[in-house]
């Protein structure tokens, strides 16, 4: 993510990294971030908070208490019409027919004809003729054009919702804070939800979804109301958390980041996302390419890596094991494990548990081991670090 474009793995003199040069789009929470002393960076064309002082402190706050993220750069898109369901069954690699009850959510990928990942998204089933997608900021415009270009024979309308803002409240105390910070109806709606389910309270949509590996929820709300909502959560002791913490939290949770762990040049099968592909007998864009790929054997796979000693894993680093070369697609320092961790794309023959060497800074070789993500969930380390002291 953003921090990697700044890091670029090299031996740089201090402070050569560039911060924002051009003013990007601003979310309705921009003023809150500036007032809170955030360091702002460009992400997906938006000026977003990287951190508000210490991204590691924000990371721990989410694992131990609760944090709030501005995710208004992500774009909600309504898919409405009599054919909304058959249309999305054709557009998405996961099958929205898994969504039987209104409110249920599904994670999946939008593929091109070659099986490459155009974006990953969450789709909420709201009504028989209404689904809501939440897509990433960077690819959003391309997604919307793609969705519209493929309506064809389907009776559907595609409506982006830039009038909606979105916050994620995550952590073991998130729900407790919601009792005070959400309006009564919103809180009651939240309390009725199962994981990966959402509901309306008036025009506000609350859902038990997130990107941190902690309990929590996300709120899609009128952009004019989000600053007040934000302040109510902060007043409850919920810590504003930036994209830096969001990146280390999702990485510990073993969740992919679009543009790093997958993009249009790789398939979901090579990206640790086979579980989101429902081949079945339904026709969907990219299916033929995935079937061909599976028949000839998936050449590469995405898995996790953990350093055996000090160091930080960086996106773009090369690695080598007995099975040949691989590459780090996401890397960082895990605040929970106090260890360098990453996601890596390696040959299909590479097994979790195998040792490998990462090319660190010039002249630096980092001993590492492949591990199946996630690294951390619900505040608990899932990786055994015993016998690998720093």
């Amino acid at each position, binding site marked *: 993510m953003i*921090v990697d474009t*700044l*890091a*670029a*793995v*090299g*031996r*740089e*003199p*201090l*402070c050569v*990294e560039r*911060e924002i040069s051009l003013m990007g789009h601003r979310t309705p929470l921009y003023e809150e971030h500036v007032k809170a002393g955030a*360091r702002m960076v460009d992400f997906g064309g938006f000026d977003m908070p*990287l*951190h508000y002082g*210490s*991204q*590691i402190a924000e990371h721990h706050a989410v694992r131990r208490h609760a944090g709030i993220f501005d995710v208004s750069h992500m774009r909600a898109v309504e898919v409405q019409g009599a054919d909304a369901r058959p249309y999305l069954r054709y557009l998405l690699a996961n099958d929205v027919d898994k969504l039987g009850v209104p409110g249920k959510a599904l994670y999946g990928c939008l593929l091109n004809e070659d099986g490459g990942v155009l974006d990953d998204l969450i789709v909420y089933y709201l009504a028989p003729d209404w689904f809501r997608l939440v897509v990433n900021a960077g690819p959003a415009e391309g997604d919307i054009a793609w969705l519209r270009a493929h309506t064809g024979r389907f009776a559907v309308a595609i409506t982006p919702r830039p009038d909606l803002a979105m916050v994620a409240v995550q952590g073991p105390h998130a729900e407790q804070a919601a009792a005070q910070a959400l309006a009564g109806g919103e809180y009651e709606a939240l309390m009725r939800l199962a994981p990966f389910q959402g509901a309306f309270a008036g025009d506000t949509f609350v859902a038990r979804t997130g990107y941190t590996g902690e309990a929590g929820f996300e709120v899609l709300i009128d952009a004019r109301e989000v600053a007040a909502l934000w302040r109510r959560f902060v007043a409850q002791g919920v810590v504003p958390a930036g994209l*830096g913490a969001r990146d*280390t939290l999702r990485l510990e949770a073993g969740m992919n980041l679009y543009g790093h762990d997958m993009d249009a040049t790789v398939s979901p099968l090579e990206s640790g996302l086979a579980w989101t592909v429902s081949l079945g007998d339904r026709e969907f864009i990219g299916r033929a390419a995935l079937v061909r790929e599976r028949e000839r054997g998936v050449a590469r796979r995405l898995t996790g890596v953990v350093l055996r000693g*000090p*160091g*930080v894993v*960086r996106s773009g680093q090369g690695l080598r094991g007995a099975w040949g070369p691989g590459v780090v697609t996401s890397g*960082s*320092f895990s605040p929970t494990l106090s260890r360098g961790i990453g996601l890596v794309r390696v040959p299909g023959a590479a097994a979790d548990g195998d040792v490998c060497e990462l090319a660190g*800074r010039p002249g630096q070789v980092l001993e590492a081991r492949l591990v199946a993500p996630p690294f951390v969930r619900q505040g608990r380390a899932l990786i055994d670090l015993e016998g690998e002291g720093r």
Partner: protein
Amino acid sequence: MSKVPGDLRYTKSHEWVRVEGQALVVGITDHAQDLMGDMVFIELPRPGTRLAAGKECAVVESVKAASDVYAPVAGEVTMINEALANAPETLNTDPYGNGWLFTMKPADPASLQGLLDAPAYEALLASEA
């Protein structure tokens, strides 16, 4: 705004130097730690290492990036701040105090004259902003 203590000397590459008797204490500036973000690993030279002015002599690594630290002047490393190994975040919280990196004996005490004073360093920061 970044702090720039008036009693220190500075380099264009954002190291600071404090004169303590015959020795120089070296660290990185508040501006540098602020841009780097949360520090996670610090690699320091061994005591006794001879440093050439302007050459890399240590590495500070944050969650965001790894950066070289350059020797402000020529000389020899005398002591290193071993406490940083277990508390790299000290560079963020106290860059001019407990976050010092190492001390050195300058080859030529006069070489300090080539470094920036506080107003000159502040002007540099203003020009980079």
